[in-house]
């Protein structure tokens, strides 16, 4: 029983919204819109659990004096401060809080965000250096096409040989696209099959116990 109800829900909703795609009529579009809104409302409650887990996670670290436990204090304080500033910053008369919220975002959170993202440039270099070795046939192909495309995007490529940018674009447009399209077919079928399995209750690991 505990398992039956969720399965029935998935089945009915699944079939309904599959059909809905083909039915343009008034009520079908309305139902569609409302359900979209409902999913938002529902997911809003999962956030409570998520935050709870995070806080709990760090509380434990602090309680048990785990290594670097003081960093957990940083996290919790930052979380609470940011949340309070943001929520009360909107209240009339408390605008200064709101401004501080924006400053913290702009000068503390956003910079770290971009810095973390910028680190990728270094990793690209190290990954390319490490992995682009002609160890096997496949690796060689990876190496060569990557090599040409890199030359293609920079002016030195065309200085070397005027055709290189065209070749680079050709690689992107023809073999690259063919491969991606092939993969896309697989993904399309895989996705559809997975959705089917969930709707029909064949794939039940989300219920736990693999359906047993």
């Amino acid at each position, binding site marked *: 029983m505990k398992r039956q109800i969720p399965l029935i829900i998935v089945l009915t909703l699944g079939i309904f919204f599959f059909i809905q795609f083909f039915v343009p009529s008034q009520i079908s579009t309305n139902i569609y819109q409302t359900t979209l809104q409902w999913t938002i409302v529902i997911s809003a409650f999962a956030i409570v659990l998520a935050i709870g887990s995070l806080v709990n996670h760090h509380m434990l670290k602090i309680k048990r004096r785990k290594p670097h436990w003081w960093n957990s204090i940083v996290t919790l304080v930052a979380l609470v401060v940011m949340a309070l500033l943001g929520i009360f910053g909107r209240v009339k008369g408390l605008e200064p809080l709101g401004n501080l919220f924006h400053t913290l975002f702009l000068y503390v959170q956003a910079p770290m965000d971009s810095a973390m993202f910028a680190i990728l*440039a*270094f990793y690209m270099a190290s990954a390319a*250096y*490490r992995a682009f*070795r002609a160890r096997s046939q496949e690796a060689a192909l990876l190496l060569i096409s990557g090599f040409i495309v890199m030359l293609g995007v920079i002016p030195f490529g065309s200085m070397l040989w005027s055709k290189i940018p065209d070749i680079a*674009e050709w690689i992107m*447009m023809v073999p690259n*696209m063919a491969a991606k399209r092939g993969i896309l077919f697989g993904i399309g079928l895989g996705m559809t099959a997975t959705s089917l399995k969930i709707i029909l209750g064949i794939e039940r690991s989300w219920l736990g116990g693999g359906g047993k």
Partner: protein
Amino acid sequence: MLKFLAKFGKLDRRIVFALLLVSILVPLLFNIKPRFYVDSATKGIYDYVDQIKPNGRPLLVSFDYDPQVAAELDPMARAVLRHCFARGVKVVGMSLAPQGDAIGEGIITQVAREYDKKLGRDYCYFGFRPGGTIIMLQLGVNVKKALPLDYYQTPYDSLPMMKNIHNYDDIAMVLSLAGSTYPVSWMIFAGTKFGVKIGAGQTAVMAPDNYPFLQTKQFIGQLGGMKGGAEYEQLIVDAGYYNTPDVASKAMGAIAYSHLLIILLIILGNIGYFISKKIEQKK
């Protein structure tokens, strides 16, 4: 000698990091700019925007990106907006990414000021709308429902340029700027479902994914990364819509040299790899 070359097979990652840093800082500090050529995907967007009827159906620009990819997408956003405003094409701005909210406002107002365009008459900005695909779908049913208030809390009906805009049929094109798969979602939920023209502005990493969609014309064009931005800047400068190339063009120098470095590293890496293999075979 061989032993020395073999060393290049296994450089410490930190050395690689250091070299990359140098290859970027030097061109930036000494400001070296190369020339580059425009690819067809960029042209696709440019040509379409170039034929939109002035004061006709507006262009919908969705700033679906976060600060971390702003470096790549801001320049193209500015370039396209300049193109529109210079030609008197109306623009509707919005964002599906929470953090795109402020980004879009900053850019659209800045460029609008350059061409002294009036808010509400020549352009509108609706800011962040939560729900992603939900919004894309709502826009097809009822724009007013999807964008009830603009960024400055002005109700939809009091925005002159938005009157007579009911759904995608009244929008010339949707340009989604994103570092994620938002443009593809637009393509599926707005393009496929409602048949509006979709253009993509993507970070260079996402751009290649969309080639299948470019070929099937599901995207009318695409701006890929800093290069796309720089190319668009070049196009509008050449066409005389704008005076000087912007940040994207400047950054291309550093880009060129860092690429060169990585290419050299790969060559050295392979030389080192094969030599050390030979050495081992001798033993």
